[in-house]
């Protein structure tokens, strides 16, 4: 509670106590009026002042002005009719203030909660100066300085580990508390928490350019990009208040005139003015206006806590309407690293064949050569290799231990006149020939991510109607992967520019209202990310380009997060619609009841304040996304 809220609470309590006390005072006439004026002024003086200022500034549909008219009107009516019932006016003002107070408190609270949730901002950095550790503001640390991160501390700035080894908790960045090991020479990202050992880090970025600052900046500014629902509500609020006020005026004047002139009945001015004043009480649009941005803010906050950064409320809205998901294959559904997945038709021990392959390819830096070396697993003794001949587009021929080793594709085998056995497996095939004799082949393929199949299934369950995979890879590989994962359509052998064209094609053929999301790793598909209705970059931890180009950023590379992001957005939007329907619905019901004389001012103010409280509480629900 801040000072303003505390004073307000005191005023509310005093006014409420006075109102209850006055109930037992048997005063009548002018004295009664003056006595009731005390709690009224205690609770409402600021509203009256603001209303006066509003009139001066020609802001007639200002809610202060409306509340002032409604309550002053009710008091005047009580005076005119001589009923002495001033309680209603005071109570209406009181409840209005209670509502405002609650709104201010709840918003302040959620503002704080959400910022705490996103509080990954490091407060200080430790710099070694003259042998002693000094805490400084991370903003003051220059690029290339050496900082010390102690166990339990947050890494304040991106850098490279110089000394020490430790385990990092990356949950603040990725939402997963999977520990990550780092050693000297490893890159380290700000926002991680150092769990075990003391490490020294040479910074490679300024604080403002570090991962943690970028994320915070992005999330904080996200709710400034407003969604269609928010625009709708602000437009609605702009029309709603004047419309209700005009309706109130009509209600006060028309029915009595009709009664008087056409029906020959008494005008009953008092009744109709009272009903009109009830209208004014309901005319405040605050419940609506507050709950929508609050829902989005909570949704974005909750998502960022789960490692899903959404760059704007509008993107959250679009994401919830996703019906078509287009994946890039490499790096998104597959690991993007090649691995040896089999050795076939091998006359000798598999390990022996891998050894020859690794030796023959030892001069090459091609990813295929690297994966063979990795599968071999031992250091390669290059002195055993002589006469390495790279035959472009075919493979290599080299002398290993005096033996002629050929490793390459079927073209190479053809060239050497060695009959080879074709492979049925999907992937890159490296045929091997030793001294001109066929020795088997090694299958190398990009490995599918462990969660990819489940991710595609979950997406379908989450309401995605079509899944499409785009890849530059060969048709056979692409179709095999797509079939394995259950991806509906696949387009293969695409150049980066073709991918944009394909996405445009898909955008044109999708049904009206459905949105298309493209998921890529953000490295070379930035144009596609921008072209899609919504671009999702994954594995973006530390990749500025991806964060820049995408609308939604998944901090780690788990494809399950795509469905999670969609479910978070669905939940948030459901809450938004609930609030819109609920708040507008209750107001309309109250207006109808008020016009018919079935709702008095008490009910009106209760409805108004109650709706707001419920809408705010409902909005906060968007924050809880852990179990989605």
């Amino acid at each position, binding site marked *: 509670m801040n000072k303003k809220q505390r004073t307000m609470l005191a005023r509310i309590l005093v006014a409420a106590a006075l109102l209850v006390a006055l109930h037992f005072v048997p005063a009548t006439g002018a004295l009664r009026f003056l006595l009731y004026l005390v709690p009224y002024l205690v609770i409402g003086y600021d509203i009256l002042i*603001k209303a006066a200022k509003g009139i001066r*500034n020609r802001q007639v549909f200002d809610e202060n002005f409306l509340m002032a008219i409604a309550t002053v009107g009710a008091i005047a009516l009580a005076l005119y009719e001589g009923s002495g019932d001033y309680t209603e006016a005071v109570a209406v003002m009181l409840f209005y203030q209670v509502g405002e107070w609650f709104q201010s408190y709840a*918003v302040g609270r959620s503002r704080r909660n959400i910022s705490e949730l996103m509080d990954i901002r490091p407060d200080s950095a430790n710099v070694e100066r003259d042998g002693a550790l000094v805490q400084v503001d991370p903003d003051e640390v220059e690029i290339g300085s050496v900082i010390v991160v102690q166990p339990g501390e947050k890494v304040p700035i991106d850098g490279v580990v110089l000394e020490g080894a430790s385990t990092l908790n990356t949950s603040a960045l990725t939402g997963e508390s999977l520990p990550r090991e780092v050693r000297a020479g490893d890159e380290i990202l700000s926002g991680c928490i150092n769990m075990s050992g003391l490490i020294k880090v040479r910074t490679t970025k300024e604080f403002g350019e570090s991962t943690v600052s970028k994320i915070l900046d992005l999330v904080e500014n996200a709710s*400034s990009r407003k969604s269609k629902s928010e625009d709708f509500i602000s437009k609605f*609020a702009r029309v709603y208040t004047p419309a209700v006020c005009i309706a109130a005026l009509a209600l006060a004047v028309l029915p009595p005139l009709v009664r008087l002139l056409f029906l020959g009945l008494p005008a009953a001015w008092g009744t109709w003015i009272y009903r009109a004043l009830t209208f004014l009480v309901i005319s405040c649009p605050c419940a609506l*206006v507050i709950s929508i*941005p609050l829902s989005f*803010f909570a949704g974005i906050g909750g998502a960022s806590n789960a490692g899903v950064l959404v760059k704007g409320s509008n993107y959250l809205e679009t994401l919830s309407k996703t019906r078509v998901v287009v994946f890039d294959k490499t790096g998104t559904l597959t690991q993007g690293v090649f691995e040896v997945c089999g050795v076939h038709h091998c006359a000798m021990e598999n390990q022996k064949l891998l050894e020859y392959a690794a030796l023959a390819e030892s001069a090459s830096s091609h990813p295929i050569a690297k994966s063979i070396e990795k599968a071999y697993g031992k250091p390669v003794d290059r002195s055993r290799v002589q006469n390495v001949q790279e035959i472009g587009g075919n493979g290599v021929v080299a002398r290993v231990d005096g033996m002629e080793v050929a490793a390459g594709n079927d073209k190479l085998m053809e060239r050497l006149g060695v009959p080879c056995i074709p492979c049925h497996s999907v992937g890159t095939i490296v045929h091997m020939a030793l001294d001109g004799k066929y020795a088997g082949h090694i299958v190398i393929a990009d490995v599918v991510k462990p969660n990819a199949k489940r991710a595609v299934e979950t997406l379908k369950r989450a309401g995605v109607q079509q899944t499409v995979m785009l890849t530059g890879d060969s048709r056979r590989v692409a179709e095999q992967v797509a079939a394995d994962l259950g991806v509906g359509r696949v387009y293969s052998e695409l150049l980066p520019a073709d991918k944009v064209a394909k996405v445009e094609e898909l955008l044109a053929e999708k049904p009206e209202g459905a949105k298309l999301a493209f998921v890529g790793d953000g490295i070379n598909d930035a144009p596609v990310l921008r072209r899609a209705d919504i671009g999702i970059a994954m594995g973006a931890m530390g990749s500025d380009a991806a964060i820049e180009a995408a609308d939604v950023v998944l901090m780690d590379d788990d494809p399950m997060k795509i469905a999670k992001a969609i479910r978070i957005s669905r939940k948030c939007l459901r809450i938004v619609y609930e609030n819109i329907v609920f708040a507008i619905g209750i107001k309309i019901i109250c207006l109808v009841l008020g016009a018919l004389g079935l709702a008095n001012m008490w009910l009106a103010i209760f409805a108004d304040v109650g709706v707001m409280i419920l809408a705010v509480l409902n909005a906060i629900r968007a924050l809880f996304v852990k179990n989605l």
Partner: protein
Amino acid sequence: MKKTYKIEVDCANCANKMEEAACKTPGVAKATVNFMTLKMIVEFLDGHDPKTVMQQVRANCKRVEDDCEVYL
């Protein structure tokens, strides 16, 4: 040019009113008020001095909602 200013305002509808008022101020290309983070992001038209424009923005905001503040 785009600049961000801290603001102080109590109700969401007032924030919308401030946004509208700021948008209508001469020299402002676009203004967004973020009620949840209490920030106003103003995009200025070329050839206008942000300082003088912001004085006017502040005055206009005060006119539609007396109980608000724009920290310049």
